């Protein structure tokens, strides 16, 4: 064994992207101030857009966490739906909402471990297809449960979160986004980050270097699905009606993916900025070009992915390697 020499040179610190932290700080200050602004007649509407922007941010960042370990998931609608249905069913069973929320999220987390175990040996396209199939399986199961249990194809009514207080709901979503950001930063600064990145960039090499690939892939699944399920809980409590088709729709799996790519993959800031820009752009387009808005939205997305392969955050970290936050 080599002797560890006493050496005056300090070990290299991880390149810490202070600018990314600053941007995150500014985002949260602005987002916190938003519901206290004089929003006028359109207050309810604006708070609703704000709420779903935060939910989209949680979904995108949760998706990105899983993608960091090389697992490009199309199962996020399933985690979202498991959160939504789990929450609704727990409320129906008389569990108080404050307990139903974490319980629904943990349930989704454990179900995701089953999926993660099955898809362990798959990669790329095969993994994506398996996760897509998983979403369909979960949707079909829920849809075919007796109507008295989960409402079948007709869906379920869910009591409104916080008695329907829009500002309270918005602030709860903001708190859960903050939690998601906390998880993402903690992962970034821990051993998990190195395991995820190694698995993503060379799974066999990672194993040769001693990375327990099974353990870390499942950890990514668990963290990601718990956070996505919390987004689902918020959705269920805000819309107070959930149905299998809406909750498990493919769009709920695809948009976290496009949002993360648009904002900047494998970063904390990217998916959040992506969610904010895309949701606001969607609303603006919806108001200005009416029915054609999806065409314009799709074009904007395509062109920006072509021109900004590293997303929005790539604009100011051009050419930099490693150390992204």
């Amino acid at each position, binding site marked *: *064994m*080599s002797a560890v020499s006493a050496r005056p040179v300090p*070990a*290299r610190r991880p390149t810490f992207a202070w600018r990314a932290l600053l941007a995150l700080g500014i985002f949260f200050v602005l987002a916190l101030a938003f519901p206290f602004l004089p929003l006028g007649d359109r207050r309810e509407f604006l708070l609703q857009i704000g709420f779903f922007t935060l939910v989209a941010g949680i979904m995108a960042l949760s998706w990105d966490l899983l993608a960091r370990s090389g697992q490009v998931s199309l199962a996020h609608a399933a985690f979202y739906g498991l959160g939504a249905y789990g929450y609704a069913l727990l409320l129906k069973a008389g569990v108080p909402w404050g307990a139903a929320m974490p319980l629904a999220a943990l349930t989704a987390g454990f179900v995701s471990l089953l999926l993660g175990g099955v898809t362990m040996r798959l990669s790329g396209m095969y993994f994506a297809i398996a996760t897509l199939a998983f979403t369909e399986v979960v949707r079909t199961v829920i849809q075919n449960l007796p109507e008295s249990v989960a409402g079948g194809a007709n869906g379920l009514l869910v009591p409104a979160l916080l008695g329907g207080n829009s500002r309270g709901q918005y602030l709860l979503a903001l708190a859960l986004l903050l939690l998601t950001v906390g998880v993402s930063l903690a992962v970034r600064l821990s051993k998990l980050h190195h395991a995820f990145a190694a698995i993503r960039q*060379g799974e066999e090499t990672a194993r040769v*270097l*001693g990375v327990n690939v099974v353990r870390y892939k499942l950890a990514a699944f668990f963290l990601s699905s718990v956070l996505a399920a919390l987004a689902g809980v918020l959705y269920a409590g805000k819309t107070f009606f959930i149905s299998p088709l809406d909750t498990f729709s493919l769009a709920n799996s695809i948009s976290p993916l496009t949002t993360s790519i648009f904002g900047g993959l494998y970063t904390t800031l990217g998916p959040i900025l992506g969610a904010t820009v895309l949701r606001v752009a969607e609303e603006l387009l919806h108001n200005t070009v009416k029915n054609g808005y999806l065409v314009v939205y799709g074009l904007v997305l395509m062109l920006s992915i072509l021109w900004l392969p590293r997303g929005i955050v790539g604009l100011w970290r051009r050419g930099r*390697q490693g150390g992204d936050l």
Partner: protein
Amino acid sequence: MSAAQSVPASALPVLRAENLSKRFGGLNAVQNVSFTHYAGEILAVIGPNGAGKTTLLNLLSGVYRPSTGRLWLQEQDITNAPMERRCHAGLGRAFQIVRPFPEMTVHENVTVGALFGQRGIRLPQAREQAYDLLERTGLAAHADRAAHELTLLQDKRLEVARALATQPRVLLLDEVMAGLRPAEAQEAVELVRGIRDSGISILFIEHIMPVVRDLADRVVVMDQGQVLAEGTYREVTANPQVVAAYLGTEAGLHA
């Protein structure tokens, strides 16, 4: 630099293969291969193309499971151990085709080895160790560069540094000299000697005979999946069977 050490007669075995065989369908890629690798030894595995060297290395590193036979690393039976467990047991491997993690810096690449190759190590400590290794392998000046920007020789150094970071007792080197110019190969030879002198046993596969001559304490010659001969470089190259196996590439043998 240090002179090559001779293996003391009392040396302990570190890696021991017993009747390893691997069949692919009807092909016996490796057949009844047994050998013992002693502590502190540089052992070369040579043989003509298709002799089964790479298959053997893949059996040792855990890419394949043997059809029959056993494999021990010190006292541990690792015949069917997954790759990460072999790593924790003290087996390191550097690939012939370098495989840096392309989006990481050089320092981060080595940190992965230090962090996951040893038990109970914390991130700051792993970073420190990784930096030490970059200094030892002459890569410290490139610590913060992206791994994909390195030259081939630097890539090979990185490959070795990363394997060393897992604190192996035995290091498997798969044709690490391939593609290097003679002067670079000489540097690489010095690097490998230095690693052995730090107490790590080395098993390497090599095509370039001068490298085998300069580096190996002992040579195992394979042909058609079997061990044809075993001994010092002088002994095996004087063996008529070995010469016959290399017939047609005899010039290469004496280059």
